[in-house]
């Protein structure tokens, strides 16, 4: 299949009149040469100068709080009793990791992550296909319509979903009472299962557009020649999809999954608005919020935040190393 791939487009970063330089891109060999031409060196210097300020700001707003939280997590420290601050080493981590609440919340968070990402991937792919194939005349309207949920602030959409399902003000119970299990007395937010269903549905409704946009970008990169050639060879629609299109956009799919998984794992707004963690719907971000913001236990809360951060790191590591997600990859389906 890959033999049919046309020559990759010219490296977009180099200007048309530049002399061919010895950049890493143009030498696909495993060991990149350390010697750069004068021009490449100047470009690299300029690159650092341009990216430098943003890099420094990034360090200030991310690295500093991370270090501060890690430091605070070693203390027993209540904001309203600053004089009683006491060094406890890894004690806070011990309390958290031996507490069933942490593991229950981790389970809830993982459940939400896995289900929402899986559903969003399928729905997002379908939407991307529709957007890709839509007639030119309706393409703009269609893309805007699909993007609307993503443009709504999460807190607003959470309230909208909450009031729709709420037993006092909601209309869902009366509109859908013909479905088994739904009647006017169903209190969606009183049990774990139904509450999580609404939370996940709201999350999926809101972020599927994001994943479909990423997938659309991947879809646009699959050269038409490939599917045309497959069609000429007599491949069905399903075969084209499975053997030509999806393998060629693997990188885009993996990037979409990774980004959404990290986002979904840090879910907060929907749960905070709809149930505030009641009845088994508490997630890890809310647990961290409860310790540091509600209880003002800065030490314990920081430790939860650090553990949450480690979880995010692990997800990224697994995705990048094990599934070989190429974050810089623009051309999918190399393998």
């Amino acid at each position, binding site marked *: 299949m890959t033999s049919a791939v046309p020559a990759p487009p010219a490296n977009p970063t180099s200007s048309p009149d530049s002399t061919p330089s010895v950049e890493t891109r143009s030498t696909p060999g495993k060991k990149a040469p350390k010697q750069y031409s004068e021009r490449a060196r100047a470009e690299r210097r300029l690159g650092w100068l341009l990216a430098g300020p943003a890099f420094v700001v990034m360090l200030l707003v991310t690295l500093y709080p991370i270090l501060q939280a890690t430091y605070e997590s070693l203390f027993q420290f209540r904001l309203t009793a600053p004089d009683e601050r006491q060094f406890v080493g890894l004690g806070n981590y011990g309390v958290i990791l031996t507490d069933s609440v942490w593991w229950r919340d981790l389970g809830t968070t993982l459940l939400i992550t896995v289900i929402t990402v899986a559903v969003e991937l399928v729905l997002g792919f379908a939407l991307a296909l529709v957007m890709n194939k839509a007639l030119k005349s309706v393409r703009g309207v269609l893309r805007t319509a699909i993007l609307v949920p993503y443009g709504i602030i999460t807190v607003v959409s959470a309230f909208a979903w909450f009031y729709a399902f709420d037993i006092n003000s909601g209309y869902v119970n009366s509109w859908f009472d013909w479905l088994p299990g739904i009647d006017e007395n169903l209190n969606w937010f*009183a049990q774990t299962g139904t509450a999580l269903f609404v939370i996940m549905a709201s999350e999926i409704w809101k972020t599927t557009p994001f994943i479909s946009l990423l997938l659309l970008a991947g879809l646009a990169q699959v050269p038409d020649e490939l599917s045309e050639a497959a069609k000429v060879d007599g491949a069905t629609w399903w075969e084209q999809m499975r053997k030509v299109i999806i393998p060629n956009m693997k990188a885009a799919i993996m990037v979409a999954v990774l980004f959404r998984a990290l986002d979904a794992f840090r879910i907060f707004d929907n749960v905070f608005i709809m149930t505030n963690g*009641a*009845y088994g719907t508490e997630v890890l971000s809310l647990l961290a919020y409860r310790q540091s913001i509600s209880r003002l236990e800065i030490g314990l809360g920081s430790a*939860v935040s650090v553990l949450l951060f480690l979880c995010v790191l692990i997800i990224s590591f697994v995705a990048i190393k094990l599934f070989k997600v190429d974050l810089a990859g623009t051309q999918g389906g190399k393998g």
Partner: protein
Amino acid sequence: MPTSRRTQNAVKNRRHAAVVAGVLAGTLLMSGCGPAASDNTLTWYINPDAGGQAAIAERCTAESDGRYSIETSLLPSDAASQREQLARRLAAGDSSLDIMSLDPPFVPELAGFLAPVPDDVAAATTENVVEGALAGATWRDELVAVPFWANTQILWYRESVAEAAGLDMSAPVTWDQIMDAAESQDKDLGVQGAQAESMTVWVNALVESAGGSIVTNPEAPADEIELDLVSDAGREAARIISTIGEEGLGGPGLATQNENASLDLFQSDAGSFMVNYPFVWPATVGAVDAGTLDEAVLDDIGWSIYPRVYDDESAAAPLGGIDLGVGAESDNPELAYEAVQCIVSVENQAEYFVTNGNPPSNTEAYEDPRIADSFPMAPVIRDSLQDAAPRPQTPFYNEVSTGIQQLWAPPSEVDPETTPEQSTDFITAVLRGERLL
């Protein structure tokens, strides 16, 4: 020539840009860090209401003859979020916290960040103030905040339902009586079963009415605090809550029901009895005036003192309200206390009750003739306040309350045999730093 003009233009543009940037930066700096409009401006952090506190601020500013001017700043809508914001600001030494509207249960926790109440102010603002409101503003036998208004729950009932059930409402009734009445008439009770602060309010009122207390030594350090839920009072409270939950007496929405949802239920055809704050009266009158509620509902509403747990022991109704604190870091604590004295004046308390439905903490304010017109149940409210019991006055109230909420909601899962013990163990472990909340 064209090149030099282009350069000139570029220089001019750049200069323009620099001027614009300079002005912008200047504006930002001035707005962020500049001195306040004048030195005698006091900021009053208020909880959301129907505009009554802002009106009082204006009145007191006008009456001060320019000695001070009060600006209001709005806090979040629920009590827990109000506490979070105030605690963060106080701990960070925010000097803009001149006057704060404080929920009484959070007074002990924030007491260390408040400016001491001058003796003359304490003497002038505590006369004729109901017992519960005074207790709520006191920490370790010292007045640390000034009682402003005092809230309490009373029993609201539909006269038609009580009559049909044969209940004599002229005397205090018990929880068992209203539970039986609601069941016999196939109606729902308006109680707050949501996993929220209102659940602790309910549990505390039941335990106190049964002669117990949730916390026996509220002034102790975190790891020495003792709970007394494993007692007859705790078990009786659990029995009432679990019966209402298990038998569906609170309706299908019980597990997520807060004060507003209870009112909606009470106004509906399923309404029977409801424990709730006085705000329900202006809300119901307003709904009738707006045409969203049938006037017959309003005419059918009666009120009585909070239901008893035992028929021979008077009830300890929930106590809420707002106390006024002055920040220790305030630039003008004397001026702030002068303003506080104006805010809590008898006239202002009466006016606030009439316009916003928040009852005075000062019994003298109930003499105001306007109150009898707008709040025919004012005498019941005043009597209820005298017997009302505050929630545990401990700096660790948030832990105690959140712990109770997590184990006493939903009501259908409460078990009189196990819930009191489980919640005692859980809260004690949290306070000792052994468990997450």
